[in-house]
């Protein structure tokens, strides 16, 4: 093609190229969808789930959980928006802030694109109280899958925090820390604890934890959000 045609294509391509913010926003939504899928897989499919999760690095999923939570920490509306985008396409309502909390396992995956895919997993909606009462290893969604148990626990903590129950969120995060002290999801858990501490008004504790978290991982994906929280933002 002639140079002018190429230039127009190049300009049009640039016009359609997404921004870094687009990329970050969709990544967070994908992570939430993936994490939700991980905790809705029935026990029979837990092996396959774990295989996929292992191959992909499901830990990014938790990063998404916290990312969604982080957005809500600065704007409830934005958090709801993110959640909506993570779940609405799958026919699931955004979570309602109420005392009748359910864990995010209420989210179901979309039907498979290809006919070769397995049928969608049944929706599971455990109550937060059940999650608190059960050891994660006995979580009803995937008893043999420790990763799913971790996800369930952290998801419950995140949901409690979203529902405004910072104490429950903090307790669940603490429980995770006790059960999985060397978890690869530790940074996600600690970020959640920081936000829960902010919700409890324990600013000094939040600041100490946030600083410890960032000193261990200066490039943490949560840096910006921690800096916006009460822990590191003087006006909050």
């Amino acid at each position, binding site marked *: 093609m002639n140079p002018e045609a190429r230039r*127009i294509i190049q300009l049009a391509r640039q*016009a*359609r190229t997404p*921004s870094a913010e*687009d990329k970050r926003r969709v990544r967070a939504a994908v992570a939430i969808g993936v994490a939700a*899928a991980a905790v809705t897989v029935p026990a029979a499919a837990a092996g396959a789930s774990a295989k996929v999760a292992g191959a992909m690095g499901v830990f990014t999923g938790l990063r998404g959980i916290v990312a969604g939570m982080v957005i809500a920490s600065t704007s409830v509306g934005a958090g709801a928006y993110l959640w909506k985008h993570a779940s609405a396409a799958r026919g699931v309502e955004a979570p309602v802030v109420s005392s009748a909390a359910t864990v995010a396992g209420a989210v179901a*995956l979309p039907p498979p694109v290809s006919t070769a895919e397995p049928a969608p997993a049944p929706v599971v909606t455990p109550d937060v109280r059940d999650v608190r009462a059960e050891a994660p290893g006995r979580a009803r969604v995937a008893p043999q899958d420790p990763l799913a148990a971790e996800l369930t626990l952290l998801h419950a903590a995140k949901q409690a925090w979203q529902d405004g129950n910072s104490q429950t969120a903090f307790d669940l995060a603490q429980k995770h820390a006790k059960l999985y002290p060397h978890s690869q999801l530790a940074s996600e858990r600690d970020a959640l604890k920081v936000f829960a501490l902010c919700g409890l008004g324990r600013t000094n504790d939040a600041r100490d934890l946030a600083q410890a978290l960032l000193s261990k991982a200066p490039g943490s994906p949560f840096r910006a959000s921690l800096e916006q929280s009460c822990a590191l933002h003087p006006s909050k």
Partner: protein
Amino acid sequence: MSFDQVYDAHFDFVWRYTLSRGVPLSAIDDVVQEVFIVVHRKLSTFEGRSSVRTWLAMITRRVARDHLRKRGNAPVGEPLGEHEASSAAGPAEALDQKMAASLLDALLARMTEIQREVFVLHEVEQMTGAEIAEALGVNENTIHTRLRAARHIFEVGIARARSAEMRNRPWTP
């Protein structure tokens, strides 16, 4: 290859290709998110027999098609309409980009569906004929034939836009 590597390397491609499939900007987040959830689920079964982009193009086509069917949107082939220019561009460049995108949309609308597909994947996304043939499930010779026809439509359209500009000056990318 990890999911994050696929996402980082190909997010822009999936986003643009989704738009070119006729998915409105208001739904782009949902559709691209769904594409990558499928990618996440399927990546462990991807054997590398095709390029990653070919594989992503196939997934994106199916997800976009399903989305448009579900929403009852206009079929692929409708002009894409206005989109925001890249946020990295300055005002002047952004304007150029927007006008170029509008012109591209207008000229794509004059093509048949397969011409448009081939043109977008080859000229905009720089995919090879073999990759496109695999993604679309057609013979590679067909791809080259359609590409020639699409290029002709595009270049003639630009020439006409230029000549209109000489007369009325409505368009100056």
